[in-house]
């Protein structure tokens, strides 16, 4: 007697496939994106495909999906379709306090900048700490259409200093007694779906206690540490040594006196930086107003230090400078020579892994339907760094359409709209 009946197995599989197909076909499709170049690194998709969305979730990605049951069909021919972009470095704890970041005018409302740049998730980089996170949540996170996640600052009130010259003010404010591992960890575990890690930011003192406490809170809660590296008393090498694999350092290509740069005066990438990368330290761009320099980024790229993510460091002083928005930062790398595929994978999939959010950054069926549809413009473009130096380029990414949880939240040219019928 045969233990295994291949015929039955074959029939069962066939029948199952038949019913799955039937089920998928019967499901009402809210949005069907047709003929776009789908790029979903997690699922190894890098080809022309259709994407269907139902009830705010990805229903199916396949070579051909019938539009018979689709309420809205978007023709994405010639466009790239990818998981909604994730910006891992922003400051969005916006409020009315002039000159402040936490609850202040220096932070920005996330929705103002996200969707028009294909971004559906932003991570606030420690603008709040355990004391003012609840206010940040009720005031901004709960009110935004953009998904707002956060690194919690080890300092109790986040970035509470004034104006741009943070470090001096922060040094006075960041009393060690305020850097409480227990309270930071408790707040993280109270909001495990929002707080994705711990941030150590501006600190002037010579003691390693703030850094160590931030690492401790991150370890206790199983989350990465986000190092903003305006820590002039610590050498870059020491900072990297104190970090664990999976921890993130930002402003990677900054060239200012407050921090040792990654590339030396002769244009050589420092060996310990590459070693840190090989050890698993993640390098975020953290562009900001002063955090991105071509004399760092270009040699670093050539010598193997590719950023893991394109954090914009969005705030009042970067929005109108060389940074502008996340697609502009990504386009900058595209024109510096990073292949498109490598740029796109760093736009959504890599940052999702860095913040340990496997539910984001991919288009697996059942995943929340956060989708970016991008066009790749050809033309003569230019890109500026923090020193107001420019490079030329011939490619630029533009956000045609952005979908957040199955809803169209940005539609540059009316791809999802109905044409006007003249009387």
């Amino acid at each position, binding site marked *: 007697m045969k233990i295994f009946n291949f015929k039955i197995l074959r029939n069962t599989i066939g029948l199952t496939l038949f019913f799955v197909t039937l089920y998928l076909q019967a499901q009402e499709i809210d949005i069907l994106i047709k003929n776009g170049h789908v790029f979903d690194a997690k699922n190894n998709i890098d080809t022309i495909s259709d994407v269907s969305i139902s009830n705010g979730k990805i229903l199916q990605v396949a070579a051909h999906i019938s539009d018979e049951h689709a309420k809205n069909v978007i023709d994405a021919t010639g466009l790239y379709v990818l998981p909604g972009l994730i910006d891992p470095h922003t400051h969005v704890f*916006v*409020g*009315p306090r*002039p*000159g402040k970041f936490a*609850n202040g*005018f220096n932070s*920005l*409302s996330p*929705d*103002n*900048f996200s*969707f*028009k740049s294909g971004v559906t998730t932003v991570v606030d980089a420690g603008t709040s700490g355990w004391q003012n996170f609840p206010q940040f949540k009720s*005031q901004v996170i709960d*009110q935004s259409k953009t998904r707002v996640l956060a690194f919690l600052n080890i300092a109790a009130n986040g970035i509470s200093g004034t104006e741009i010259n943070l470090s001096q003010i922060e040094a006075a404010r960041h009393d060690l007694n305020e850097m409480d591992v227990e309270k930071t960890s408790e707040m993280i575990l109270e909001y495990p779906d929002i707080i994705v890690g711990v941030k150590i930011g501006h600190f002037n003192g010579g003691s390693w206690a703030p850094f160590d406490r931030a690492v401790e809170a991150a370890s206790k809660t199983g989350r990465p540490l986000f190092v903003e590296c305006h820590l002039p008393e610590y050498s870059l090498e020491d900072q990297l040594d104190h970090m664990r694999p999976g921890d993130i350092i930002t402003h990677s290509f900054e060239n200012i006196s407050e921090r040792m740069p990654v590339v030396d005066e002769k*244009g050589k990438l420092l060996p310990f930086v590459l070693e840190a990368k090989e050890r698993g330290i993640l390098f975020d761009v953290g562009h900001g107003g002063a955090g991105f320099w*071509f*004399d760092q980024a*270009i*040699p670093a790229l050539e010598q193997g230090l590719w950023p893991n993510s394109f954090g914009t460091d969005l705030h*009042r002083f970067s*929005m*109108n400078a*060389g940074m*502008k928005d996340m697609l502009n930062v990504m386009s900058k790398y595209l024109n510096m020579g990073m292949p498109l595929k490598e740029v796109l994978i760093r736009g959504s999939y890599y940052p999702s892994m860095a913040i340990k959010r496997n539910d984001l950054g991919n288009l697996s069926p059942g995943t929340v339907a956060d989708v970016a549809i991008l066009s790749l413009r050809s033309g*003569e*473009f*230019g*890109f*500026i*760094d923090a020193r*107001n*130096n*420019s*490079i030329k380029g011939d490619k630029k990414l533009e956000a045609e359409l952005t979908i957040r949880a199955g809803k169209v*939240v*940005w*539609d*540059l*040219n*009316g*791809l*999802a*709209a*109905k*044409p*006007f019928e*003249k*009387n």
Partner: protein
Amino acid sequence: MSKIERLQRPFIVLLLLLLTSYFGIQAQEYDILLKGGHLIDSKNNIDGQMDVAIADGKIAEIAQSIHKSKAVRTIDVSGLYVTPGLIDMHTHVFMGNEAGAYIANGATSLMPDGFTFRAGVTTVVDAGSSGWRNFPLFKAQTIDKSKTRVLALLNIVGTGMKSRFEEQDVTDMNPEMTAYSIQKLYPDILVGIKAAHYWGDFTQVDRAVEAGKKAGVPVMVDFGEHEPPNSIEALFMEHLRPGDIFTHTYSNGPDQRETIVDQNGKLKPFILKAQKRGIIFDMGHGGGAFTWEQAVPATKQGFKADVISSDLHTQSMNSGMKDLSNTISKFMALGISLSDAIYRATWAPAKVINRTDLGNLSIGAVADVAVFNLRNGDFGFLDVRRIRVKGDKKLETELTLRAGKVVWDLNGIAAEDYRE
């Protein structure tokens, strides 16, 4: 050589030296030179190639050719359009987080700088988010902290647009205090009065006009929540003065809001008469106030809004509106020329708000300048009902100067080339 000649020689050398140094200084008399662009300056009837020189934050010279040697920095703007910095006459920028407030110190308003410079806008007019009671807070919190020039229409309601309910409080519609704030306290910032969102009869408009007469400024009316609806013909012909402003010109509903085009697609006959009388029609796009259904037939029948404005707030920023340059491009998709559309976002609003120091590039004017790239391609423009009209031209903001400083530089045309 005579004695006199010998004495003259050092003098001549000195004179030559002086002349050389004088011309040396002359050679750098301008801070910025915008060279080779197509200038559109409606006030000065310029619509052609013209160089623009800037010194000390002001327009210093406009000429067909100004030599590079006269400027510290020359920016090549050939192939681009140069215009006065745009004036967005209808925005809501009193951003804050007061509990229960929506537009006044509330989350529906936006910070101006994130939306202005990237769209070529250098001046915004806040359209009545604040009233005389909360204007000082608005000024301290937003106006004084913004790089964008923020002007304002003061709401006839003392608390401005705090909530729909407070906006109905007739006892807080005070012409005396409103006029006093405009004339005596903040004459450089407050350029008019706003009447909006009122559910009753003409009381609110009449109070606003009374204040407008006292202060000598125009009134802008957002007119369309009246139950039962009020006649816009009566508004234009009996209640408003020439120079007063009707906003949300192309909105189509809700039912309480009377439209300019009737159900048969015909422009109501009194609209052109009202415009002739001097009523100013403001686009005020917003999240709900621009429809192709109104705009297309109205344009075909010879009517154009006098001013193109965005009605910028959180509900319009990511919708069909997007920003003022997109809104101007949309106007062009209706068949209106670039120079006419630019006029309606520069010199036209400057005149309406009696700020003729703005919206032009006359010699001595503040150097608020926008430089646009007119893209050609397949573009689409949405109205508030998610209906699309195609267009083949779209403005993109290359460079924006505010008081002679570069505040937006899309492609680094004012930056230095990176050298390894």
